[in-house]
């Protein structure tokens, strides 16, 4: 087994990590923040399966990745429900405006 495909996968992992981190730092819309978190989670997911592939234990990598998929989905669901409630109550999804609000 050559290590070339693994290197390419890791390039994808690092690229997704960079894009997700940049988005997390710069976006202001609450739903886009969740999109950024999802991109970061995809990067971690790809890294887990690639680690299993590299170590010759693909099934272990898969089983841990399934746990991450479940956790990631729950984070997205709860985050989106929070965003909908915030939009209903505050009338905005802008993180900058929300942090300057006084109750």
């Amino acid at each position, binding site marked *: *087994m*050559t290590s070339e495909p*693994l290197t*390419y996968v*890791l390039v*994808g*992992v*690092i*690229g*997704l*990590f*960079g894009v997700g*981190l*940049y*988005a997390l*730092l*710069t976006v*202001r*819309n609450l*739903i*886009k923040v*969740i*999109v*950024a978190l*999802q*991109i970061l989670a*995809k990067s971690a*997911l*790809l890294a887990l*399966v690639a680690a299993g592939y*590299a170590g*010759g234990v*693909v*099934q272990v*990598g*898969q*089983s*841990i990745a399934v746990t991450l*998929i*479940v*956790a*990631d*989905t729950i984070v997205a*669901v*709860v985050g*989106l*429900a*929070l*965003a*909908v*409630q915030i*939009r*209903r*109550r*505050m*009338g905005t*999804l*802008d*993180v*900058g405006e929300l942090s300057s609000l006084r109750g």
Partner: protein
Amino acid sequence: MIQLLLAVAAIGCAVQAVRSGRLLGSALWLAGVSAIVALSFFLMGAPQVAVIELSVGAGLVTVLFVFSIGIAGDEPVETQSIVPRLVGIVLSLAASALAALFVLPVAVARAPTAEPAFSDVLWGGRGLDVLLQLVLIFSGVLGVLSLLTEGEAPAHPSIMVREVPKELAELTELSLEEERR
């Protein structure tokens, strides 16, 4: 070679998901990232997790995003960020370079070992993880139910204005004009 193409496509979709001016576009580009990642899993010999990622990541999560955007409204995304964009680019590039420094030199695949089936590993070896998943799903469902069925919240005025019937709005405008005269 195909893995390189998939990696480039996934990064391109992620960039478009971040850059897209509309939230709906972001959600669809994110679904594209999920689909490409699932294909990459399949090529790495992990078909079970590829199917789960495709159905949950590209299917369920996208539907949830579209549903939420439908409720919250697809308001135009602002361009000015809180953290200066240059700082964001420098920080993310530095973090990516650091990750590459640690990860890429050890990217050597070993020969696959004889492993039990996926179901045996998941139910036998990772039983605690399965329990954790059940707890997560249960708490997530409870959290969403409590969030979405919470009492009648006072809606924001900007949302209330949208619900006023057209005739009533015209009548109000007419009476305001008469008062001004």
